[in-house]
């Protein structure tokens, strides 16, 4: 009985290990490649003399830093606007009982499921007409389809978790509704707000379909730019790996920071976790 149990545990650990290799080895391999010179790329696997040449080449001799900054500006801008407009909306959807409330909430959620190409095709035309094509503002605006539903739905859930009594108490103390909002509620939802903002940032950062068609000359996020390293005639695999590594890094760091709230964010508040 005991040995059977041990065998089962070994099997379970083994299966988990197999999947872990599948999930994590590509990332480790990618990081390894960044330290390999072009010459060693072809005939070595794990033993080689590490070099920083690829990093120097990508960061100093290409426009990669500019792409990186573009990604930062666009993603940060998108999240900021979503917070300013979305947090009050989330509050209203959590607290007030108004007509068509659930319709409004579902309308906002439905943006999440709309095919991105459907937005991109007509928007390409509109943006060129009104001068938003290939601008920061244009991308920040269209990114609202990614960041706003996430923020509103997740933050709404956190507001719903706060007892109404707290607000009543603040009301009795003579605060105005917006004072109650800023001084008592916002501090309470802060962890949830920060984590959903970071997750929204990751999603905006990883967006590809929107910037592929709606920008790409003056404004070019890393996701779109990374493909260039793949398509160029002289393939420098090491530089490709550097481009991929640096662009994946912020998202992975942020994900580590928000672990506890990740499930809630990923499921838009449907799973409280």
């Amino acid at each position, binding site marked *: 009985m005991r040995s059977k149990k041990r065998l089962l*545990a070994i099997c*379970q650990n083994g*299966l*988990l290990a197999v*999947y*872990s290799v599948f*999930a*994590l080895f*590509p*990332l480790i*391999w990618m990081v390894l490649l960044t330290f390999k010179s072009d010459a060693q790329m*072809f005939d070595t*696997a794990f033993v080689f003399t590490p070099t920083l040449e690829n990093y120097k080449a990508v960061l100093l001799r290409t426009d990669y830093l500019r792409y990186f900054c573009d990604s930062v500006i666009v993603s940060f801008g998108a999240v900021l*606007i979503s917070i300013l*407009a*979305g947090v*009050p*909306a989330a*509050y209203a*959807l959590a607290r*007030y*009982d*108004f007509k068509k*409330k659930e319709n*409004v909430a579902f309308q*906002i959620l*439905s943006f999440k*499921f*709309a*095919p*991105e*190409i*459907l*937005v991109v*095709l*007509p*928007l390409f035309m*509109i943006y060129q007409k009104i001068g938003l094509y290939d601008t920061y503002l244009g991308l920040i*605006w269209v990114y*609202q*389809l990614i960041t706003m539903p996430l923020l509103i739905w997740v933050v709404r859930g956190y507001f719903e978790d706060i007892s109404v009594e707290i607000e*009543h108490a603040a*009301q009795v103390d003579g605060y105005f*509704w917006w004072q109650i909002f800023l001084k008592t509620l916002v501090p309470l939802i802060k962890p949830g707000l920060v984590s959903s903002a970071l997750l929204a940032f990751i999603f905006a*950062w*990883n967006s*590809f*379909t929107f910037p592929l068609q709606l920008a790409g000359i003056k404004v070019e996020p890393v*996701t*779109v730019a990374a493909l260039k390293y793949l398509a160029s005639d002289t393939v420098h*695999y090491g530089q*490709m*790996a550097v481009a991929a590594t640096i662009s*994946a890094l912020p998202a992975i760091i942020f*994900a580590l920071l928000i672990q506890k709230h*990740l*499930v809630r964010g990923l*499921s838009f508040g449907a*799973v*409280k976790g």
Partner: protein
Amino acid sequence: MIPVVPKKKVGDADNINAPPLSARIRPYLIVAPALIITIGIMIPFAMAIYYSLTSYSFRLPDYSFVGLRNWIRMFQAPEFWRAVWVTLRYASFSTGIEMLLGLGIALLLGNLNNRFSRIMRVALIFPLMVAPVIATIIWQLMLNSSVGIVEKFLNVFGVYNFPWAASHSTAMMTAVMIDVWVNCPFIIVLILAGLQSLPKSPFESAKIDGGSAWFNFRKLTLPMLKPYIYIALLFRLMAALQEFSIIFALTKGGPGDTLMNISITAYNTGFQFNKFGASLPYILFLWVVIYILAKQIAQRWQAAQRQASGKSIDERGEAG
């Protein structure tokens, strides 16, 4: 005369006293900015319907109203049905594998409570945070026939130059594999949260009754996990039906039309062949399908959630 008493709604946050007009419209005012920002960007949806009835092209200055011609041509075109077939295959393979694998790994993680599994609970999320495009680049580096580690590994077994994305027969498998790599952690995370929220008492009484592990899983775990499974399915299936980034970065739909799903076909028709009007019916069709499916799954999720919460409350009541 009978004094008119204004009807009050009870339960609102600050409706303790009679709400003046300003308080009644306040919620709408608060929601308005968010709605304006997002609806502004939704104007394209309405425009898409209109332009699907025209011969609009990005190159030509004029266009004409052509009625349902674009729609009829689409339904007659073999490439449309081909795209539907590719979309369905891609979505069902990737979602199906992700659900089964994700459920399995989540059960393993929930069952094992050693240091290894605790580290993996965190580390396994990493692929999900990598942009699908970047993930595709990473896998192209892995599978590359001259520098890829997978090639070197396969050489040991005497397999040389496995074609991966370059061949008709293996391109779909390759794309699905990348999709699974990126998105399986999503299922794992959700199901694991579900497992951790399960009430303990039914499992304890099942232990006394001496049910087998498989019986417990089928009769207890799975039914109570249902809401989590539906949510996972909803998010994954809707995304897989419209997958664009992975396929675009991998082969742009090739080789030939092997990976031309509806999104890629619409993109090519609109931007490569400049037939904007003709590209829109494809994507509008996809939108309708996704919308209907999403509603169906969301309804099931709500029903499952009601059932599960009812059940667990009963059982908690018995235990207490």
